[in-house]
């Protein structure tokens, strides 16, 4: 079954995988997905069908534009919106964008908001992504859900970018933590953390919802585990994608459940204090006070009060209308053909599309109504039977299930009249029952009787219309028993049926509203079915009984077979009673632009209908989706069931998940199973109708039966899952105090949360995280605080016995790692007593061996200086092996290039003889020795020297090696200047310059950028550059070489050239340390130490450690450490000694004076020309120097200028 279902399921889930598009191979089996790419965010991914992604009323949804708009928007961008009013776009208008239908109470994850007021969002209830009008929504950010919502955001971001490091990411299950913590937080906030809490005990609805929520959670955890397995065993990317899609849906579901849970909670609270007037987001309340739609205040007609059924029905209607439209409209035909053509080479035939649509619409009916039944949920089941609200629900459900099956069957497009009659009869019976209940409510309530009566009449009217339509159909088909109803007739029936669904929904919502005000009461009438006084005959439908029972309903049309009017066109127009004006999008100017970006694939078909879509659009804001797409979006519901690659048990549990949802509102298991079977029947039949592949039948049948038994059969699974979820929830955790970035990396958190992360029970902590933590923790916590936090972690994990063992071991490991390789005696010593007592008392008791070892370590640490484990240079996981990787140990050392003459010169010098000139020595060998010298210092740099801008401290800096680096670099620069200026003869100076250029070149060849930088700095300095006579004697070839070297170390654009070179550079390499220091300074100074967690809890969010800052710091340090691998070069002690002596000699005076001395020397050697130049000749490149090099210097000596160059400046200034 798994195998059989897989291709299908992937197709079904596919629409969700938009977020994967960029990275993974595109799954073309999902036509709808392409369109959903239209989000401005993923505009890059839209390459294949770019213009299909037109956002509504947006020319091209370009990214910049979007950014601009975001900037202009009010400061707060709400990530979640909740619809307070239903929105149902008409599908009659064909278009290229996806608009999401909204039901009241639907929660939407917003990706971006366009200025025209349309938001690109994902509907949590279905996972569908598309455009939705923000004015139908309000920000949704209830305090107790905030953590969960935030977690969902992270989850989404993570999954969307997931492919970057799948294995790693999914391997450690980190991404689950936030969701779990979010759910926990919700329950904690609502005092429902344990099953035993009084609140849960007292409120049945809460209990159920809590259960459902937890079972969803455990389902998600399961899926995550499965994903883990996938990663371990190589699986096709498709499968992984499926699981990821599934998980996202599950996460959505969890949030949906959470929202519902919260609603119930609020309702519960409100019930307890009925007099207090509060504003809440509950559906029922909303319906009583519709915030915006003005045209609605007088009439309830058209309002839907959160009834999802009508929504589902409307979708069905539309899908049907398109289906029927296909026969007449070429455009429609073209449209549905186009995508199928496009998809044809792929594994999923387009035939599945309509099929899925239909089965979907069927199952939607079965699953969705639960949302609207909240009123009854708060009442303990035992007392419910006769309560009017319960009765209302039951009868409503009943009606809907009939209507649902009816509509579902209509989609098969072939039905015998007999069937039709039976169905209609059932429907009418159910409708009667509902009407009776409503009637009872009506009777109770005197105040609202009018409005309620109105909506009841409307419902009655609708039912009548359905009957009329049915009769018409049957009549027109000649009243022959076995005749088949013509497909085109279905349109009318569908409209009528949809109208019924909608009217019933409104009426029920109205009833609930009334009930809310007057309170629930016992329904005396007994079973509603019995109340029905008029047994309906298919061909003799009479309004009579209703007419009597509903005295106020003047609107009823007497249904005489002969003179009934054709039913008015219902469907869409019905829904579009004055829609709230959507903000900007309404401007016609914008709309004109919409059709421009036509999808290339469709342009053929749409060429001529651009105009009429245009005109039809002008009344309707959103360019509407292609016909099937909105329906596709609901596939995610059933696919989750089907995708499950496991056996029946898993299926059952999943299915039960959904059924558990629907049974929330209705305690009657009978109803649930009715619905379950109804839906499965629908999906079966519809499958049969359109799927050519017969082999698919068997599994589907099993699924059907499974779902039928699922109500009873799956309870056990739920219970199991629940226990799992419960125990999970009961873990004390700080996970909600963590912040993540889009890649799932931790960017912030409190110390306990970070420590918890460091000691997770179910996965090895991320290496990067651990090393960052060790490296930087002293910046945000004192050693004592860390030790205390670790001990606390050790303690509180005892509350969750099933994870205690691994966590404790990890706590021990953290201590061990700290003592062994990250111990800094001076600062950390204060924490030692805590660690020792912890080891002695707590650890020894639980893990005797570990306790002993830790004590031993603590003892060693207190007596030894420096780390116990010989220097772990790299915090980023560099090991000694990495060195051998770059330089095999058997690489022959390069032979020292020192001639006998040179050795002799050195010896002579050492004996007190003359100092050999630098030009005596081979440039390569000098470069090598320089490199060795610098590399020794570079390798000695400890990571903590680079923390907190330590090296910039004026005094008492611990960054000795960093300081030594910069000192050496400066010394080398000075040496270069000295050796050049040492000669009085410009030819000798030129030779020295040439020599240094060669040395620099050799340094470059050795990848010694630090020395290169130092040498170039001097050659580039004004002191040297101004020696025009000297430069004239340097060959153009050398100058070109110098130019090339200069280009590399050019500080332009923050050393762009150099950085590019160093990026991915393979060691051995000695990078220029300055860029790292600059980066570290910026990270250190530019990032605050703490962050504000998005406010939850009572007031403001808590301050958390800005771990991101430390991660960045650690990254930079890691980059530097990457190069801390010594060269394999032979040191020549004599040469080193000589070099050191030269440096010391040059170093004799303080630096600043030295620079001036060099400059004076330079002036002395080649004095300034007589007339002062307003602008330097030699600005910029050396090339200009060469070209302007008419050397007149010797003839124009100005002795006074020797020490008075500044005075000359001033003189010049006063002259000008």
């Amino acid at each position, binding site marked *: 079954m798994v195998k059989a279902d897989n291709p299908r399921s992937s197709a079904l889930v596919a629409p969700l995988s938009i977020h994967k598009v960029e990275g993974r191979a595109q799954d073309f089996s999902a036509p709808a997905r392409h369109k959903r790419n239209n989000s401005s965010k993923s505009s890059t991914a839209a390459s294949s069908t770019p213009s299909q992604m037109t956002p509504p009323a947006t020319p091209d949804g370009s990214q910049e534009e979007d950014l601009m708009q975001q900037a202009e928007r009010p400061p707060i961008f709400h990530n979640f919106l909740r619809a307070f009013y239903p929105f149902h776009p008409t599908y009659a208008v064909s278009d290229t964008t996806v608009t999401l239908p909204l039901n009241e109470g639907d929660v939407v994850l917003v990706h971006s908001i366009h200025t025209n007021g349309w938001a690109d969002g994902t509907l949590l209830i279905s996972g569908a992504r598309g455009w939705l009008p923000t004015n139908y929504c309000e920000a949704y950010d209830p305090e107790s859900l905030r953590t969960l919502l935030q977690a969902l955001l992270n989850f989404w971001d993570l999954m969307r970018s997931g492919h970057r490091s799948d294995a790693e990411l999914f391997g450690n299950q980190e991404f689950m933590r936030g969701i779990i913590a979010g759910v926990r937080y919700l329950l904690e906030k609502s005092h429902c953390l344990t099953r035993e809490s009084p609140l849960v005990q007292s409120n049945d609805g809460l209990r159920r919802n809590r259960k459902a929520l937890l079972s969803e959670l455990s389902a998600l955890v399961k899926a995550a585990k499965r994903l883990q397995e996938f990663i371990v065993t190589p699986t096709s990317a498709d499968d992984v994608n499926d699981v990821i899609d599934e998980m996202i849906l599950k996460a959505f579901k969890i949030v949906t459940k959470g929202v519902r849970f919260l609603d119930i909670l609020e309702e519960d609270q409100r019930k307890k204090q009925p007099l207090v007037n509060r504003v809440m987001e509950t559906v029922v309340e909303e319906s009583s006070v519709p915030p915006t739609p003005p045209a609605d205040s007088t009439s309830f007609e058209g309002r839907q009060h959160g009834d999802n059924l009508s929504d589902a029905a409307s979708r069905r209607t539309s899908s049907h209308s398109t289906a029927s439209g296909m026969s007449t409209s070429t455009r429609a035909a073209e449209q549905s053909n186009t995508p199928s053509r496009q998809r044809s080479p792929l594994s999923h035939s387009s035939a599945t599309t309509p099929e899925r649509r239909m089965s979907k619409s069927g199952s939607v009916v079965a699953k969705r109504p639960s949302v609207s039944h909240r009123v009854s949920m708060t009442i303990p089941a035992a007392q419910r039977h006769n309560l009017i609200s319960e009765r209302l629900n039951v009868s409503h459900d009943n009606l809907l299930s009939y209507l649902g099956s009816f509509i579902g069957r209509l989609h098969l497009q072939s039905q015998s009249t007999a069937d039709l009659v039976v169905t209609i009869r059932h429907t009418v019976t159910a409708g009667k029952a509902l009407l009776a209940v409503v009637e009872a409510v009506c009777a109770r309530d005197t105040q609202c009787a009018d409005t309620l009566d109105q909506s009841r009449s409307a419902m009655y009217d609708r039912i009548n219309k359905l009957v009329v339509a049915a009769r018409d159909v049957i009549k027109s088909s000649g009243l022959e028993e076995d005749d088949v109803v013509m497909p085109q007739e279905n349109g009318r029936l569908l409209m009528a049926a949809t109208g019924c669904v909608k009217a019933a929904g409104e009426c029920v919502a109205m009833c609930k509203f009334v009930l809310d005000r007057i309170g629930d009461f016992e329904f005396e009438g007994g079973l509603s079915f019995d109340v029905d006084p008029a047994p309906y005959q298919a061909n003799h439908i009479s309004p009579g009984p209703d007419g009597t029972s509903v005295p106020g309903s003047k609107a009823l049309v007497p249904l005489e077979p002969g003179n009934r009017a054709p039913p008015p066109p219902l469907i869409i127009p019905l829904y579009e009673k004055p829609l709230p004006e959507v903000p900007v999008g309404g401007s016609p100017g914008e709309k004109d632009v919409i059709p421009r970006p036509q999808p290339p694939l469709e342009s053929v078909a749409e060429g001529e209908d651009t105009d009429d879509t245009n005109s039809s659009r002008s009344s309707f804001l959103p360019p509407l989706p292609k016909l099937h797409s909105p329906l596709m979006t609901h596939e995610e519901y059933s696919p989750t069931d089907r995708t499950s690659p496991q056996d029946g048990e898993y299926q059952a549990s999943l299915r039960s998940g959904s059924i558990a949802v629907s049974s929330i509102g209705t305690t009657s298991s009978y109803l649930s199973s009715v619905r379950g079977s109804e839906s499965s029947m629908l999906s079966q039949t519809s499958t049969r109708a359109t799927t050519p592949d017969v082999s698919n039948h068997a599994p589907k049948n099993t699924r059907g039966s499974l779902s039928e038994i699922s109500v009873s059969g799956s309870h056990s699974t739920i219970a199991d899952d629940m226990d799992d979820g419960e125990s999970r929830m009961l873990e004390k955790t700080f996970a909600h105090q963590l912040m993540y970035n889009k890649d799932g990396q931790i960017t912030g958190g409190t110390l306990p949360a970070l420590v918890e992360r460091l000691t997770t029970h179910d996965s090895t902590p991320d290496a990067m995280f651990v090393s960052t933590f060790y490296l930087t923790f002293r910046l945000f916590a004192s050693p004592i605080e860390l030790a205390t936090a670790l001990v606390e972690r050790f303690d509180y994990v005892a509350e969750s016995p099933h994870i205690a063992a691994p966590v404790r071991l990890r706590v021990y490991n953290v201590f061990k790692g700290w003592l062994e390789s990250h111990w800094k005696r001076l600062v950390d010593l204060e924490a030692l007593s805590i660690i020792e007592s912890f080891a002695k008392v707590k650890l020894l008791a639980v893990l005797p061996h570990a306790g002993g070892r830790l004590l031993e370590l603590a003892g060693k640490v207190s007596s030894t200086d420096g780390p116990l484990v010989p220097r772990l240079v790299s915090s980023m996981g560099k090991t000694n092996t990495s060195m051998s990787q770059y330089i095999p140990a058997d690489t022959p050392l390069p032979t020292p290039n020192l001639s006998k003459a040179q050795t002799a010169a050195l010896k002579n010098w050492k004996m007190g003889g003359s100092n050999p000139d630098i030009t005596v020595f081979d440039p390569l060998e000098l470069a090598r020795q320089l490199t060795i010298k610098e590399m020794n210092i570079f390798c000695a740099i400890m990571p903590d020297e680079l923390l907190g801008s330590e090296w910039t401290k004026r005094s008492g800096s611990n960054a000795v090696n960093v300081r030594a680096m910069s000192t050496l670099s400066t010394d080398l620069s000075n040496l270069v200047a000295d050796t050049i200026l040492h000669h009085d003869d410009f030819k000798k100076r030129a030779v020295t310059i040439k020599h240094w250029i060669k040395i620099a070149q050799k340094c470059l060849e050795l990848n010694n950028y630090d020395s290169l930088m130092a040498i170039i700095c001097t050659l580039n300095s004004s002191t040297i550059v101004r020696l025009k006579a000297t430069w004239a004697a340097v060959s153009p070839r050398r100058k070109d070489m110098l130019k090339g070297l200069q280009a590399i170390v050019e500080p332009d654009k923050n050393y762009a050239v150099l950085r590019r070179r160093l990026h991915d550079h393979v060691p051995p390499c000695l990078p220029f340390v300055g860029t790292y220091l600059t980066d570290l300074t910026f990270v250190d100074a530019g990032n605050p130490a703490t962050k504000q967690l998005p406010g939850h809890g009572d007031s403001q969010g808590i301050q958390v450690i800005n771990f991101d800052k430390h991660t960045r710091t650690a990254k930079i340090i890691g980059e530097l450490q990457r190069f801390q691998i010594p060269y394999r070069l032979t040191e020549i002690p004599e040469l080193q000694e000589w070099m050191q002596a030269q440096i010391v000699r040059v170093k004799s005076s303080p630096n600043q004076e030295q620079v001036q001395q060099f400059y004076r020397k330079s002036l002395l050697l080649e004095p300034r020309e007589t007339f002062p130049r307003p602008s330097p*000749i030699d600005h910029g490149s050396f090339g200009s120097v060469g070209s302007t090099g008419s050397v007149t210097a010797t003839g124009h000596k100005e002795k006074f200028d020797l020490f008075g*160059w500044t005075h000359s400046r001033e003189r010049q200034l006063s002259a000008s």
Partner: protein
Amino acid sequence: MCGLRAMILLLRTRCLVTDRSLEQGRQCMLEILDTAGTEQFTAMRELYMKTGQGFLLVFSITSQSSLNELSELREQIIRIKDDDNVPIVIVGNKSDLEEDRMVSRAKAFAVSQSWGNAPYYETSARRRANVDEVFIDLCRQIIRKDNSAPQAFDDEISGVYGQGRKDRRSRQSRRRKKDRSCVIL
């Protein structure tokens, strides 16, 4: 807290605004070179200075010595640029710490006058006071210099002219900072 970094960060977000408000409505791109962290590579100063076209000399009004250090820097700049009229703005930062003031406004102004009438501003990076003005002034100077010396001995600039990119100019402004409480320099 740290004036220097704060100023740069401020500037990063405001750079465009600043440039747009320039006289003649001319837009120019300001490349700001920040050598943070490499102060101890003293030999590199020259390299940095060489590339700059305008300089902010920032000292802390709470530290006399920070002002003294500026004079060294200025001399070096003038020497390296070989130009007395290098665009320079003297900035006394931390004007919010009036109670800790060690350098009187008059004195600082006198110093700036003695340095070729360089404009003097007092800023507070913390309060975001005068930060924009400093950069606008510097940009003005750079542009004026460009305009007044089109015959240019300066190859780079004339090259830019030659290519007709008058509207968008790459400017480098070397920012030397003297800022005591700041971690750097």
